[in-house]
Every structure is written in structure tokens, then in C-alpha cells.
């Protein structure tokens, strides 16, 4: 493992009374692709938001590039964020701007490049995700998968030191999925950055990851290189990787036994 870029220690976080992270430690290297996998609803998106400083942990620290994210002044936090790219699960494109302007947005906000250079940069980024032809469309005219690729072009617009991808593959057809997998890999190698890929797509993600974290029920269940994970003896890991319904991984959100609930009378449990 190369030098650590993101160091998470003793992370605790709960939301609405539910514990989402309980004492999580993680080290994410400065270069290479780190995959974070886990069942739906374990808090993968939440983890990215914690790293980006949008949420505050209840306890523990998150250091990015040696700086404790949650103790930075707003100005320093923003300076750090300029070096982070984030691809939101929903894309989060600005709906009142065209595709072109969306990708140009961070460039215009943070640099003083002239119009010609902005245009060249944007076209290059859009070309990288295969959507140069869509530059005049508005976000409402894109499919979910296309919107995510535009968001990806935007995330790399400022050549960040790290890129966080939240579910980059969902909603992609097999071809663009393959293209995206390669794209993430080649972007990572070309820019020599830290890529964090959150995904359920075990096979695709494992094929490009250098290191894998599997989280569930608030803790890191397993971590290691893809080979180590594949050969894991943990029943839990095997179940997740192979997508079996039976095993230690719960499919259900925490709840009392079904029968109890069915006969518990009326109303919801929150009362």
C-alpha cells in the first residue's frame, strides 16, 4: 500500500437514533482505486459525505491529506474540496444549466481561464465520458445513466487529487458499464489520483480495485486486496460476493420478528 491519503480512526456516526458507523478505521491510499462495498443502506453514501465534510461524525477523526476535515475553517475546507471530485448517486447536475455549462461550472468558479480554454477543457472532459455530442442538452433531457456520466466529467473538471464515485455503474447498459469501468481505471492511472468507488457491482468493481473494504452493520467486515477478498474464508464475505440470499448478511432492515409485528396491533412502531 502506498502512502495514506485518507485516514479514518474510531469513526462513530448515528442518524435518527440509528447507529450507522460504530468505530470504523480505514486507510485509503493516495493512489490507486479503493472500493467500498456493502449492502444497501449500510452507509456508503454517508461515509463519502463524512469524508467530504458535509456531515459531522459523533466521534472519531477523518484526516484527508493530513488535515482533520472536521476541524478545518470553512475557507480551508473549501480549499480542500477543490481538490476533491465527487460523483453523487443522483448526479446532482444543476438543472438550470446545460450539460456544457455544468461541466464548465467548477472551472469557471475556481479558475480565471479564458473562454476558449474553458471550452477546450470541457470538451475534453465530455469526450472522455463519451458525451461531447450531448453538450447542448439540458440535464432534463438526459437519461439517468447519461446524467451520471456528465456528473463524472464535472467531478474530474478540476483535475482533483481524489475522486469519489457513488454508485457509478447503476443504470448503465453493459456497454457503457464496461466503458465506465475502463474509464475510471484509466482516469485513475492517467491522473495518478486516489479513486474511491462505492458500488454493489461486485464483479466490475473488483476487476479494477487495488484495495477493497467491505462494510456492513456499522463496521468494516473485511478488507484487503481483491485476491484476498476472493479467497476469503469469511462466510459473510462469500455470501456478499456471490449474492446468496441465505447467510449471515441480513436482507431486512432491523426489525422485530415479522409475527410480532403483524400481531402488534395498529399503527407504526414510532407511535
Amino acid at each position, binding site marked *: 500500500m502506498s502512502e495514506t491519503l485518507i485516514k479514518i480512526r474510531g469513526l462513530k456516526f448515528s442518524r435518527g437514533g440509528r447507529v450507522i458507523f460504530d468505530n470504523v478505521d480505514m486507510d485509503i491510499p493516495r493512489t490507486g482505486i479503493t472500493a467500498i462495498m456493502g449492502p444497501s443502506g449500510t452507509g456508503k453514501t454517508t461515509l463519502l*459525505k463524512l469524508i*467530504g465534510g*458535509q456531515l459531522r461524525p459523533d466521534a472519531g477523526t477523518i484526516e484527508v491529506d493530513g488535515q482533520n476535515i472536521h476541524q478545518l475553517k470553512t475557507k480551508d475546507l*473549501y*480549499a480542500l*474540496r*477543490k481538490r*476533491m471530485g*465527487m460523483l*453523487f*448517486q*443522483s448526479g*446532482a*447536475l*444543476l*438543472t438550470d444549466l446545460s450539460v456544457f455549462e455544468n461541466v464548465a*461550472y*467548477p472551472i469557471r*468558479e*475556481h479558475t480565471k481561464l479564458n473562454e476558449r480554454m474553458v471550452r477546450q477543457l470541457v470538451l475534453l472532459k465530455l469526450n472522455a465520458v463519451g458525451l461531447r455530442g450531448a453538450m447542448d442538452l439540458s440535464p432534463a433531457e438526459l437519461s439517468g445513466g447519461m446524467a451520471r456520466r456528465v*456528473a463524472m466529467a*464535472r467531478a474530474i473538471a478540476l483535475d482533483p487529487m481524489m475522486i469519489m464515485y457513488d454508485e457509478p455503474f447503476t443504470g448503465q447498459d453493459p456497454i457503457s458499464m464496461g466503458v465506465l469501468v475502463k474509464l475510471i481505471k484509466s482516469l485513475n492511472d492517467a491522473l495518478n489520483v486516489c479513486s474511491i468507488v462505492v458500488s454493489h457491482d461486485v464483479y466490475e468493481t473488483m476487476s479494477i480495485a487495488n484495495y477493497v473494504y467491505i462494510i456492513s452493520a456499522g463496521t468494516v467486515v473485511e478488507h484487503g486486496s481483491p485476491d484476498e477478498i476472493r479467497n476469503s474464508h469469511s462466510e459473510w464475505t462469500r455470501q456478499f460476493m456471490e449474492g446468496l440470499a441465505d447467510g449471515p448478511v441480513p436482507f431486512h432492515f432491523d426489525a422485530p420478528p415479522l409475527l410480532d409485528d403483524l400481531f402488534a396491533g395498529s399503527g407504526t412502531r414510532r407511535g
Partner: protein
Amino acid sequence: MVDILLDRIQGLGRGTLAAVSRLGRANVFLLEVFAGLSGMLTRPGLLIKQLFSVGVQTLIIIVVAGLFVGMVMALQAYYALVDFGAEDSLSVMVVLSLLRELGPVITALLFAGRAGSALTAEIGLMKATEQLSGMEMMAVNPIERVIAPRFLAGMISMPLLAAIFSAVGVMGGYLVAVELLGLDAGAFWSQAQAKVELFEDLGNGMIKSLVFGFVVSWIAVFEGYDCIPTSEGLGQATTRTVVYGSLAILVLDFVLTALMFGK
């Protein structure tokens, strides 16, 4: 029995706490918006765009409403005054009520319904679709880029719209009084000119609409920014903008009127 009572008391306490903390958030938010206003110096384009969608697009409804309110005022004033043979003072009644009350208040109410609700819905939707989070992650302060221009545009638009409302209202009054009821045009204008004070009437009306503009814009952008990011939460926030906005206007109108004219 005791249980139910305790439940009620608990609910009351929880509700009060929630309301107070919301009020606190609204105030902190306002300070952040003020801090964000400086960003407009470098990007006047943002403000101009909002002036268009907040102000210009509200113009039609203001003009139509102003025209009819002025016309109705003239009719009512005529019926009230004609018995005393004082119909020449009709214009005074129309102009004063427009400048002091109807202009600022009706404009603000229409503004809350038309522009305020649209502001809340737009900002709330941006929040629900993670556009605001997305900006934060791009190291762009959404309060500076999204909220502040809308807030300022609302504050600037309101007095202008109220002025237009009153002006059009006076025209409407003139139409009814002179063209329909056959009163003397010269008397219409000279009476109004003689009785309307620049500061007392026009100035105080302006102050009112400035205050309304501030409050309605504040409520509208806060409700959008603070909404629960679901379709239901968004609907509730939009409704709250109109309800709280309208109530605030009416209450403030009373307070301001008492302060200004109650000597």
C-alpha cells in the same frame, strides 16, 4: 389517563422546542445570507437573472391586480362620497389608500403567492436533488450563489412592484372616475396633488413594502433551504411560505401603520 396527559405535555414541549430551534436556524441562516451578499459584487449576472424571474415575471399579475383594485376603489369611493356631494375628493381617497395600504399589502400578498412559493419550490427541489450538496462539494457556497441572489432580488423587486401597483391603480381609478362616472379630470389630479404628502404617504408606503419584501423573501428562501427533501416536505414548505408570508405581512402592516400614522 396520566399517561395521556404526560404524552400531551411532552408533545407540547417537543413542538415548542422544534419551533424555537427553527426560529434560531432561520436567524443564523439570515446572517449567512447577508454574508453571502458580497458574492454578488463579482457576479452581477446572478442577481439580474433572479430579478427577471422574481420581479419581471410577477409584473403582469401586479399590473392586472392594480388596475382592478384602483377601479373598484374609485367606484366604492364614489358611492360613499356622492351622498355628501364630495365626489371631487374621490381621487384623494383612491390615491391615499393605494399608497398607504393597498399597494404595499396586496403587492406583498400576491408576491408571496406568486414569487415566494416559486422560490421555495425551486430551492427545495435543488436541495432534494442534491444540487446544493453538489455545489458544496465543488467548493461553491450555495448560500452565496443560489440563496443570496434570490433573496436580494425579492427585496429589490417588492418596492418597485408596489410602486407599479399603486401607479396602475391610480390610472384605474382615473379611468373609472373620469371616463365612466364623468368627474372632472382637473379636479381629480389637483385634489390628489393637494392632499398627498411625499414623505408621509409615499415614503411610508415604500418603507412598508421594503419591510414586506425583506420578510417574505426571507421566509421563502429559508423554507426552501430548510425543507424536508421529499415531495411531501416540499409541498409543505411551499404552503408554509404562502401562509407564514401572508400572516407576517398582515401583522406587520398593522404594527407599521400604528407606528407611522398613529400620532
